[in-house]
């Protein structure tokens, strides 16, 4: 993918906030392996990380389980 100054082509990218565009361009310049290192993190999530295995018959059942069991601040509740 050729790298160019995105600000030179407002037709292509005009609707994208400039700060996001800069982040997208910076990411595009990094090798995939580097992007992985920046992107995947590990922090403890209460309840969610406390069982080694879970299986749900339906996505609706999984969503409901999240809403009933996970702390709100994790953001898994539906809007």
């Amino acid at each position, binding site marked *: *993918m050729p790298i160019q100054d995105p600000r030179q082509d407002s037709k*292509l*990218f005009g*609707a*994208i*906030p400039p700060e*996001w*565009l800069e*982040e*997208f361009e*910076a*990411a*595009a310049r990094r090798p*995939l*392996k580097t*992007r*992985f*290192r*920046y*992107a*995947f*993190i*590990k*922090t403890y*999530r209460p309840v969610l*990380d406390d*069982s*080694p*295995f*879970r*299986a*749900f*018959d*339906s*996505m609706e*059942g*999984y*969503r409901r389980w*999240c809403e009933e069991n996970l702390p709100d601040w*994790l*953001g*898994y*509740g*539906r*809007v």
Partner: protein
Amino acid sequence: MGAFEYRQAEEIRDAFSRHGVRYLFIGKSGAILLGFPDTTQDADLFVERSLENGEALVAALPDLGFDLTPQQAQEVRAGKDFVQLKNGPFDLDLVFAPDGIETFADAWNRRVEVEGFPVCHPDDIIASKEATNRLKDRESLPRLRSFRDYWKARR
């Protein structure tokens, strides 16, 4: 257990290829493969639900270090809608019926290949997150939509 690493994604790709598992990276992990700069914890895989694919998946997971009991293996094999694995070297979510996507075949036909990794098209990743409508997705969707526009313009 540490963060998901590039070499582990390669291990998924290689083990699933050996065993013939049909799958796609989806969710934010899929978006990251496409170039989306953001953070996440889990690798999310959209797995085709079929008897043959379930068998292949159960055969492949031990190669990646996931230790399944016979009952857990049966639940994976059966293609429960959502399976969360935290009994291996990294967190892995197996999604057999993601919200917002009609069929695996549809998503497969629209897939994007990134260095040998099969990834859902950004339109499908966004459709799935829109349908899920979680608070954490709603917060990230505007930036993800902008990335989709950027990605399409760059192709």
